C-alpha cells in the first residue's frame, strides 16, 4: 500500500496500479476514454489529466495523464486543479469538433460514456465553427451497426478486437484527423466476440443492431440480473425489456466469471423470447378451441395424472427449481434425464471427475492466470466461447510476467507490454478432432480421432507421473509431443487442462482426469475445466435421474402411460423414429415449453412456460457455480414459470409436499433441505422478503418522466404496478436507489455514470471483484487425496471400418445451440448443413466439395454436401451438431455409407 495525496488529502491505495485506477477505486470522478480496466492504458485520449506536484512545496505542478503514471508513495496530485480541469474540458472540446451531436437519434444516448464525460468535464459550448469531417459507414453483419461519424478515436475498439480477442478484420486506417475504424471493406465481422464492441465503444459508433430492431433507451428498459442460457459457462447478463418484448442483453460484470465481456451467441441469441413460435397460452388438444386458460389446462393435466402412471423427463436447459419440482412431482424413480444417453453418461462422468478428481476447477478469471494450457477434444470457441477468450489471455501470461519484471514495465501499460512480448506466447497445446480458432496461438496442435486424443492424454499423464498407465503403440511424433506437453505442464506454476463432453468421448474425459491427478500427485496447483453441453447440465446431473432410454422402455413396456416433458424437444435428444414411437405410445403427453417444436406437436396438454426472461431460477455452470437469474418482466396468468405450473399441478393433486410450497423461496428451501448437494443455494441471492430501508430494488432506472408516463400512450389511468412474489425486485423505477447486493444488480448505474462504465462504482477495486463478493456459490470441491490414476484402462488405437465413417459432432457457436437459433441474426451466421471428410477419403470415394454424400446412422438416412479437410482423421468424418435441418443422431456413431443411394432422388427425409 502507498499513501498518495489527492487535493491535499491523504489516501491509502495499492501499489502497482496507475493513478487513474487508484482514483476511480477511491470513487473519484475522473473522466477517461482510452483506458479500459481489462485492457490497460495507452495514453491516447489525454482525458484523464491531473496535476502532479513534485513535493509539498511545489505549487505549480505539471499536467500528467493519470492512466500513464504509476502510483508512488507520497505522491501529490490534484484533480480539482483549475488548469487540469480546463485541459480536460478542452479535450472534450477537441473530441467534439467532429462529433455529430446527434444524441437525440443515437442509440447510445442515455447510456453514453461520451455524454457522461462531457457533463463531468463541464464542457458546454462549442467554439469550433468549421465543417466537420464525415465518413461512409460500413455494413458489419447482423450484430453490429456502424456509425463512424460519432467516433472519438479512442482506439478501444481495435485494441479490444485485435489485441484482446484476437480478431483480424477490424483495424484503424488512415491518419491525422481522418482515422477510420472499421473493416478493410464492408462485410460481416468475423470474431465470435464482436458484440463487446458495443460496450467497449464509449459512444455510438458500434451499436447493437438487434436492439435497433426494437429500440428503447436504457432509461426506459426494465432490467433484471440474469444468467446466459446458451452454454455451460453461465456468464452473467442483464436482460432488458419494454412493452413485453426483450430488447437487449448487456454484460453484467462478474469478476470471477465473465468479467466485462460476452460472446455473440450470449449477447444476440435472445430473440427466442420474442419469437412468433412462442407458446403464449396453454393448449389442451382434446378440447376445441385448443388454446385455453390456465385452470382448464391444469385440470386436464391433473386428470391425466390421476388416471395414468406418470413418468417425467427433465431438461438441462430448464432451471434447477423446475427440474426439482418435476422430480418431486413424479417421484425419484420416475424422473428421467431428457438428454441422449451418451450425453447423460458423459455429464455424469464429468461431475464424478470434478468431485472425485484431485484438481480444482478454476473460474474464468483464474483461467486467465494459467501459465500452461492443454486442451483435449474441445473446440472452445464453438463450445464454450468465453473460455476460449480466457485462454487467449492466459497464453500471454507466462511470457509477459517474465518480461515485464525484467524490463521494469508496469503490467497496465498495455502498448509497452505488447511491444516487449511481440508474438511470444505461453505453452498452449490443443488436441482436437479438427482445427479450432485457437490453433493460431497454440504451441502445438494435434488432430485425430477422440481415441487418439485420449491416448495422447494418457501418455502425457504417464510422462508426468510414472505410476500412471503407460500407452503402447504411439508413434515417434506422438511420444515426443506427449513429452513436450508433460514438460510444459510440469514447468508451469498453474497448469490447466481443459476438456469436455463435446467430442463425445468418455475416454478423453478420463485421460484429462489422469493428467490432472498426475499433476496434483506431483504437487502442482493444477486446474481442470470440463465444458458441458448446456446451461444447466451440471445442476441436472447433480440432481440425478434415469436415462432417457429407460423412459422409453417404461412407456413401451407399459410400466407407465403418461409422460410429462419439461422444456425439452426430444427430437433433439434421440433418434426421430424412436421419439415418435415413444410419444405415440403414450396415452397422454404433457409438455411444458416456451416454443413450438416437434415435441410440442405431439403434446396432448401443452403448458406455456416462461423463458429465462420470464422466470426465476437457479443454474449451475460447468465449474459447479450456482447462480440465480431473475424474471425480467411479469407475464399474464396463462404463461408462467415451469416450476410454478408444476407446483400448481401438485397442489391440485394434493401432493404431500408440493402443496405446502407457496412460492419460489419455499421450493428453494425444500430443495436445499432434501438434497445436501445443494447446500447454500438458497443463499446465492437474497430471499423474496429482502429489503433495503424497507424498499425493494428497482428493475427500471431512474427516469424523470416517471413510470406513470410509460403506458400513457395506451391509457392515461395509471395501472397498479405488478408485484413480484418471488424476488426482492420491483418492476418499476420505485425502490432503493443505492447499490444492491452483488447478486441482484439489475443494471449498472451511478450518479453521472449512465453507461456500462458505471461498473467501476460497483467494484471493490477497479477491474476486480464486485463489492460484497462476486455472486454465485461453488458447490463442488475436489478431493485432493485422489492422486492415483483415475483409470488404468487406455483405449486402443482407432481402427477405420470399411464402408463406414466414424461420424463425429462438430460444434458451431452459431447453429449448434437450440434456443439461439430462433434469433434471425444468429441464423444468418450459422453454417449450411455439411459433412466433413478427410481429403484422402474423399478422393477414394471420388467426392468433391459440394457433392453430396449419403449415409445412414441408426436407420436415419442423411444426404449432405461434402466439405473436405486434411486435418480430420481418415476413417472419421464430422457433421454439425444440433444444426436445425439435420435430423438428430447420437454422435459419435458409425455411419454406414449408402453408395447405391447416392444418385437416387430422395423423398423429404434427405437434405
Amino acid at each position, binding site marked *: 500500500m502507498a499513501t498518495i495525496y489527492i487535493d491535499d488529502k491523504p489516501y491509502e491505495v495499492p501499489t502497482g496500479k496507475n493513478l487513474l485506477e487508484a482514483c476511480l477505486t477511491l470513487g473519484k470522478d475522473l473522466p477517461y476514454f482510452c483506458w479500459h480496466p481489462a485492457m490497460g492504458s*495507452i*495514453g*491516447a*485520449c*489525454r*482525458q484523464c*489529466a491531473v496535476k502532479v506536484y513534485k513535493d509539498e512545496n511545489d505549487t505549480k505542478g*505539471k*499536467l*500528467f495523464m493519470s492512466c*500513464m503514471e504509476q502510483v508512488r508513495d507520497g505522491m501529490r496530485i490534484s484533480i480539482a486543479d483549475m488548469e487540469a480541469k*480546463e*485541459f480536460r474540458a*478542452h*479535450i472534450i472540446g*477537441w*473530441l467534439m*469538433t*467532429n462529433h455529430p451531436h446527434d444524441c437525440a437519434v443515437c442509440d447510445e444516448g442515455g447510456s453514453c460514456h461520451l455524454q457522461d464525460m462531457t457533463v463531468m468535464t463541464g464542457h458546454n459550448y462549442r*467554439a*469550433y465553427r*468549421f465543417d466537420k469531417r464525415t465518413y461512409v459507414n460500413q455494413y458489419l453483419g447482423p450484430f453490429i451497426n456502424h456509425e463512424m461519424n460519432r467516433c*472519438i*478515436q479512442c*482506439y478501444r475498439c481495435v485494441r479490444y478486437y485485435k489485441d484482446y480477442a484476437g480478431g483480424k478484420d477490424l483495424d*484503424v486506417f*488512415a*491518419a*491525422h*484527423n*481522418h*482515422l477510420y475504424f472499421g473493416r478493410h471493406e464492408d462485410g460481416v465481422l468475423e470474431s465470435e466476440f464482436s458484440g463487446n464492441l458495443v460496450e467497449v465503444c464509449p459512444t455510438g459508433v458500434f451499436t447493437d443492431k438487434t436492439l435497433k430492431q426494437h429500440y428503447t433507451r436504457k432509461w426506459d428498459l426494465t432490467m433484471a440480473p440474469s444468467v446466459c442460457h446458451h452454454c455451460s459457462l453461465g456468464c452473467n447478463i442483464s436482460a432488458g425489456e419494454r412493452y413485453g418484448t426483450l430488447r437487449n442483453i448487456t454484460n453484467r460484470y462478474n469478476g470471477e466469471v465473465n468479467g466485462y465481456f460476452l460472446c455473440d451467441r450470449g449477447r444476440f441469441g435472445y430473440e427466442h423470447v420474442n419469437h412468433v413460435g412462442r407458446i403464449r397460452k396453454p393448449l389442451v388438444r382434446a378440447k376445441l378451441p385448443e388454446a385455453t386458460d390456465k385452470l382448464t389446462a391444469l385440470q386436464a393435466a391433473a386428470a391425466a395424472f390421476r388416471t395414468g402412471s406418470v413418468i417425467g423427463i427433465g431438461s438441462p436447459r430448464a432451471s434447477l427449481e423446475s427440474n426439482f419440482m418435476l422430480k418431486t412431482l413424479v417421484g425419484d424413480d420416475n424422473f428421467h434425464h431428457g438428454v441422449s444417453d451418451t450425453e447423460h453418461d458423459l455429464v455424469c462422468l464429468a461431475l464424478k471427475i470434478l468431485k472425485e478428481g484431485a484438481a480444482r476447477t478454476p473460474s474464468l478469471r483464474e483461467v486467465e492466470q494459467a501459465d500452461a494450457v492443454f486442451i483435449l477434444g474441445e473446440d472452445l470457441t464453438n463450445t464454450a466461447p468465453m473460455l476460449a477468450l480466457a485462454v487467449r489471455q492466459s497464453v500471454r501470461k507466462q511470457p509477459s510476467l517474465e*518480461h515485464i519484471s525484467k*524490463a*521494469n*514495465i508496469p503490467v497496465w*501499460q498495455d*502498448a*509497452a507490454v505488447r*511491444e*516487449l*512480448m*511481440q508474438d511470444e506466447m505461453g505453452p498452449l497445446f490443443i488436441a482436437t478432432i479438427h482445427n479450432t480458432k485457437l490453433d493460431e496461438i497454440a504451441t502445438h496442435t494435434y488432430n485425430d480421432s477422440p481415441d487418439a486424443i485420449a491416448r495422447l492424454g494418457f501418455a502425457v499423464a504417464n510422462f508426468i507421473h510414472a505410476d500412471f498407465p503407460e500407452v503402447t503403440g504411439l508413434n515417434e511424433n506422438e511420444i515426443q509431443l506427449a513429452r513436450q506437453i508433460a514438460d510444459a505442464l510440469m514447468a508451469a506454476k498453474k497448469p490447466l487442462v481443459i476438456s469436455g463432453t463435446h467430442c463425445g468421448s468418455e475416454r478423453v474425459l478420463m485421460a484429462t482426469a489422469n493428467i490432472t491427478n498426475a499433476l496434483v500427485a506431483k504437487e502442482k496447483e493444477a486446474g481442470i475445466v470440463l465444458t458441458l453441453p448446456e446451461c444447466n447440465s451440471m445442476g441436472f446431473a447433480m440432481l440425478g435421474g434415469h436415462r432417457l432410454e429407460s423412459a422409453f422402455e417404461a412407456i413401451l413396456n407399459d410400466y407407465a402411460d403418461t409422460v410429462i416433458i419439461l422444456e425439452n424437444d426430444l427430437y433433439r435428444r434421440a433418434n426421430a423414429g424412436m421419439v415418435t414411437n415413444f410419444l405415440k405410445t403414450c396415452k397422454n403427453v404433457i409438455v411444458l415449453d416456451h416454443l413450438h417444436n416437434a415435441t410440442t406437436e405431439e403434446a396432448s396438454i401443452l403448458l406455456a412456460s416462461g423463458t429465462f426472461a420470464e422466470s426465476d431460477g437457479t443454474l449451475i455452470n460447468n465449474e459447479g457455480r450456482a447462480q440465480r437469474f431473475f424474471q425480467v418482466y411479469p407475464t399474464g396468468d396463462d404463461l408462467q414459470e415451469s416450476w410454478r405450473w408444476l407446483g400448481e399441478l401438485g397442489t391440485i393433486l394434493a401432493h404431500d409436499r408440493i402443496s405446502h410450497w407457496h412460492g419460489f423461496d419455499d421450493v428453494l428451501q425444500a430443495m436445499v433441505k432434501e438434497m445436501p448437494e445443494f447446500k447454500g443455494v438458497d443463499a446465492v441471492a437474497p430471499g423474496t422478503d429482502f429489503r433495503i430501508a424497507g424498499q425493494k430494488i428497482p428493475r427500471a432506472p431512474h427516469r424523470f418522466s416517471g413510470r406513470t408516463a410509460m403506458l400513457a400512450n395506451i391509457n392515461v389511468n395509471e395501472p397498479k404496478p405488478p408485484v413480484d412474489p418471488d424476488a426482492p425486485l420491483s418492476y418499476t423505477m420505485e425502490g432503493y436507489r443505492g447499490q444492491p447486493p452483488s447478486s441482484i444488480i439489475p443494471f449498472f448505474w451511478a450518479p453521472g455514470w449512465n453507461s456500462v462504465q458505471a461498473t467501476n462504482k460497483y467494484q471493490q477495486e477497479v477491474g476486480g471483484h464486485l463489492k460484497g463478493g462476486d455472486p454465485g456459490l461453488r458447490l463442488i470441491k475436489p478431493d485432493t487425496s485422489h492422486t492415483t490414476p483415475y483409470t488404468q484402462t487406455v483405449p486402443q488405437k482407432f481402427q477405420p471400418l470399411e464402408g463406414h465413417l466414424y461420424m463425429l459432432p462438430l460444434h458451431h457457436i452459431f447453429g449448434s445451440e437450440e434456443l439461439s437459433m430462433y434469433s434471425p441474426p444468429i441464423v444468418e451466421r450459422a453454417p449450411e448443413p455439411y459433412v466433413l471428410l478427410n481429403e484422402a477419403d474423399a478422393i477414394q470415394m471420388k467426392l468433391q466439395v459440394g457433392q453430396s454424400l449419403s449415409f445412414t446412422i441408426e436407420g436415419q438416412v442423411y444426404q449432405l454436401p461434402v466439405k473436405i479437410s486434411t486435418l480430420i482423421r481418415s476413417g472419421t468424418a464430422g457433421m454439425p451438431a444440433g444444426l436445425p435441418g439435420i435430423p438428430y443422431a447420437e454422435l459419435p456413431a458409425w455411419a454406414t455409407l449408402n453408395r447405391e443411394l447416392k444418385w437416387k432422388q430422395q423423398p423429404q427425409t434427405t437434405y
Partner: protein
Amino acid sequence: MEKPLTQHIVPGRAPLSLKEYEKVGGYQSVRKILKEMAPADVQNLVKASDLRGRGGAGFNTGLKWSFVPMGPEVAKPKYLVANADEMEPGTFKDRVLLEGNPHQLIEGMIVAAYAIDASISYIFMRWAYKVAAREIIKALDEAYEAGYLGENILGSGFNLDMHLHTGVGRYMCGEETALLNALEGKRANPRAKPPFPQVSGLFGKPTIVNNVETLCCLPHIINNGAEWFKGLSKTGDAGTKLYGISGRVKTPGCWELPMGTTIRELIEEHGGGMQDGYLFKGLLPGGASTDFLVEEHLDLPMDYTAIQAAGSRMGTGTMIILDDQTCPVGFVHNLQHFFAQESCGFCTPCREGLPWVEKILLAIDRGEGKPEHLLTLDFHTKYLGPGNTFCALAPGAMEPLQSALKYFREDFERHIHEQHCPWSKAKVWQPSI
C-alpha cells in the same frame, strides 16, 4: 577551419568509393575500436567528447548509449538504427552527408553498434532520398565485400548486419519510437516513454536510434579524441555543425561550420545576406518546429544552449528565413497545414487541435478571421505543450505559432480587423485536404 564531416564531399562529384575512402583514412576508427577498445571505452570516449544528438533534441550521445543494458545476460539481438528520415521542413543537412559520403555513415554506424554491442542495424531513410538510397546500397555492398560488415568483422568476432529501409514519407517517422513502429511494419504511432528504446525498442529489444549527422561525427571522435572534438567548437557545445539556410537569402545552402557560429555570420557571410528588395523579418532556427527568432537575436551563437536560452531550440540547425514580403499568417498556416496533415492521429489534442488551428489560420489569412480566433490559438499554444500531448509533434507545431503570435501579433490582428490579408494580391492558396 576544420570540416571533418564534409571534408570529402565535393558538390557535383560522386561520393568516394570504398577504395578512395580507405585511402583518405576511412574505416580507421573501425580498425582502432575492434583492436584496441572495449565497447565501454567507446561509450566513455563519446560521452567525454560531449557529442550531442544532431537530430534536434541535443541529448548527449554517449549518455544515451549508456542506458543500453550490456553484458551476456541481456536480450539479443540489440539494434542500432540510423534516423535518416529527414522530413523536418527546411532541413536538408543529412541529405548532404548521405549523398556525399555514405561510407562515413556506415563507419559511424559500425562504431555505434560496437559501442552498444548491437548485431543488426538499419538505416531508416526518407523515401524521397532516391540518390542517397542508391549510393548507400552501393556502399553497403562494398562494405560487406571488404568485410567491414557481416560475420566476424576484420577477424574481431564482432558481427553486424546493416540494412537500408526506405519509408513511405511520414513526418512522424522522424520520431524515434514511431520510426521503430514503422520499421516493425506497424502504424507509425509513437510509443510512450518509458520504456525507452534502449530497454524495449525495435521488436521489443534494446535499440539505439541516432541521427545521421551524429553517427557521422563518431569516426572522427574515435580517430582524434574527445578534446579535439570539443576544440572544434566556438562555444560550450562541442564539434562542428551542419548549418543550412533557406528562404530569400542570396545563396541558400548548407555548410559545415564550428558549433556556435552566430546567426548573423551565417546569414551575412554564408547566405550572402537578404536578397535585394527583401528585408529580414524573422527566422526559424532549426526547422519548422522551432520558435521564431527576430532581429534582436541575430548575434546569438547557433548552439543548443544559447538558442534555448533565447526561447527557441536549435533543432536541426537549418534555418528558414521569413522576409517582409511574406505574410507571417500564411507562413504559419502553411506550417500548420503540414503538421496537421502529418499528425498520426493517436492523441486527441494533436489530432483534433492541429486541424482546428490550421482552419483558423486559413480563415484569418482569407480575411474571415474573428477576434475570438486569437483566443482559440492562444489556448492551443498553451495546452498543446510537452507532456500534454503524446509526443513532441504538436508541441513542435505550437512553437512557431506561439512565437509568431508573440512577435507578429499585430499582423494577425490586422488580418482580422481589415478582414483581408495585407500581403495578398492573388487568391489565397488552398490546401488540398
